[in-house]
């Protein structure tokens, strides 16, 4: 989020570590979460994202470090007294209560009188467009409807922060897109903080202001979806984002335009991320995003090219990902528009050239 870096964060993790026996699920985590932002915690399973969320919800206690909500240490505060409601991956709706009673639950625990409770629950059911289901049993609802009940149940107490633990993972693909829209709109309208745990890049990128990439209990990178996508700061992030071609190489010529020697050839790079100076002989990772490479059938007029053998394509609508193999057996991916690809008439085994501009190469130091 812009302009929030000076503001006091709503939530801070300071050196938070969580051990299960001898295994560290989360390791010395520092993270600030600002009021009103949509923050995604993303990473492969077992990276510590859910554990972090559960510590914030008060369902796990940190082994070390401090979690602060609004500047106040909350490590020892019970989940019941935190007002950090969570939307569960399993939704955890109460099967013996109907829709309205489920939504009323949080208010009932706060001893709100029955009539107020009912009214506030109905307002939220209306807001989520499921008011007509108020008296239904949970077992009679579809997946998307349950999702809305779970959201209403968590939001009815009007918290300042909502925690979401992979809430869309059980839905059909088209429903996921629809619910992403619902969540995104809701977060903007309410102006409250959403902390969203997911392993899905598309969910994280589609909705969040900032994305936290985690791996093995540590934060790898924090940034806007665009930053994560275009300027990954570690090989892990570049790999995890999924559409990058990464080659390890050494610098053979210094300057504004570097020459990098890799196992698939020697390429020139004029990286825009000039904050890091790569000296002669230093090793680095050269990242070429699949959507920044072009395909041609004849040898292109540039040194930045590789000869590819077509393997397969993955069609996801207007954009197609082409999977190819280089001469030394390494994989190479190119994303092109479907109608452009049709002109090439590529078949399994066809040879083509992939090329890219030296300015489009992103470099990551080997140590990172």
């Amino acid at each position, binding site marked *: 989020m812009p302009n929030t870096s000076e503001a006091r964060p709503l939530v801070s993790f300071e050196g938070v570590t969580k051990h299960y026996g001898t295994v560290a699920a989360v390791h010395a985590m520092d993270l600030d979460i600002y009021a009103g932002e949509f923050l995604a915690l993303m990473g492969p399973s077992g990276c510590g994202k859910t554990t972090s969320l559960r510590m914030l919800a008060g369902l796990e206690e940190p082994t070390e470090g401090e979690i602060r909500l609004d500047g106040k240490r909350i490590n020892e505060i019970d989940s019941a007294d935190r007002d950090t409601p*969570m939307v*569960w991956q399993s939704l955890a709706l109460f*099967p013996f209560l109907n829709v309205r009673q489920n939504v009323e*639950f949080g208010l009932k*625990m706060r001893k709100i009188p029955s009539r107020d409770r009912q009214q506030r629950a109905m307002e939220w059911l209306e807001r989520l467009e499921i008011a007509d289901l108020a008296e239904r049993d949970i*077992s009679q609802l579809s997946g998307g409807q349950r999702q809305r009940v779970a959201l209403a149940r968590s939001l009815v*107490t009007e918290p300042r922060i909502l925690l979401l633990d992979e809430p869309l993972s059980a839905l059909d693909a088209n429903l996921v897109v629809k619910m992403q829209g619902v969540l995104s709109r809701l977060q903007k309208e309410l102006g409250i903080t959403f902390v969203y745990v997911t392993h899905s890049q598309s969910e994280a990128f589609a909705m969040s202001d900032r994305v936290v990439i985690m791996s093995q209990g540590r934060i790898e990178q924090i940034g806007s979806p665009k930053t994560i996508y275009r300027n990954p700061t570690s090989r892990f992030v570049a790999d995890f984002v999924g559409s990058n071609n990464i080659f390890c190489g050494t610098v053979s010529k210094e300057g504004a335009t570097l020459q990098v020697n890799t196992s698939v050839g020697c390429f020139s790079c004029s990286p825009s991320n000039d904050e890091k100076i790569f000296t002669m002989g230093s090793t680095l990772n050269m990242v070429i995003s699949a959507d920044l490479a072009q395909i041609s059938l004849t040898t292109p007029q540039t040194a930045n090219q590789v000869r590819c053998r077509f393997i397969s394509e993955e069609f996801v609508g207007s954009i197609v990902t082409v999977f190819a193999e280089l001469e030394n057996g390494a994989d190479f991916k190119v994303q092109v528009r479907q109608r452009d690809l049709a002109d090439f008439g590529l078949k399994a085994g066809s040879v083509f050239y992939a090329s890219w501009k030296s300015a489009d190469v992103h470099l990551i130091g080997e140590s990172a």
Partner: protein
Amino acid sequence: MTRLSGQNLLLRGYVVLVFVFVFTPIVTSFVFSVNSDRFPTIPLGHFTTHWYETIFADPDIWEAFRVSALVSVSVAILATFIGFCTAYTDYRYNFTGKALYLSLALLPPTIPLVIMGLAMLALLARINMSGQIYSIVVSHVVLCSPFAMAVVRMRLAQINPDLEPAAWNLGASPWRAMHEVIIPFCRPAIASAFCLTAAVSFDEFAVAWFVSGLNKTVPVMILEILQGNTDPQINAIGSIVFAISMSLVVIAQLIFFRKTSAPATTGI
């Protein structure tokens, strides 16, 4: 196809035979309870409700039913409570010695009833608690709690483990969550455990015989009558006892399976 239906027929025949084997003595007992003859012989005499009338006129038998009812309801309440608590601690907590705790909790039904009765008598007599109605209650609670625990445990195995933390997360204290989530979820199992333990206690003879003293329960009464003479009244009492415990067990089954057969909603 014909072979399959042949097998099917054989299987059905087998099931019928099993039921015949199990129920013939009970049916026989019922038939002779409404038969006018003094001794259970064939050919039968005529239909009569005489034996039922004589037992209903006997204050000792009323007293035995009263004791049995009092005992079995008390036992059902206590055993269900203890069984629920044991099942919940098993569900919620992990601790060292949990395996030992569970095996001890499930142990009583594996002890031969005569041994159990004798041990109970030895203990209760030593602490001056034998021969009272509550002596039977205490002994039966020991015997019945594991059944209640098993039923509740079966239900808790179906719960979505996120439900209770979800209640905490929404502002419920641990006690409140137990009251608002765990108990409502387990309600069919609790009702079922109540009926089942009541039935077990109502039927139980050996332990009750050892510890009951002068407070005879119905099964103890039956034996006393039998020791004196063969009397068709026994058949009448037996039929009533059978009807009561069978109803309790059937109700227990109905409650448990009707309420829990709907897919346990995990939200997916």
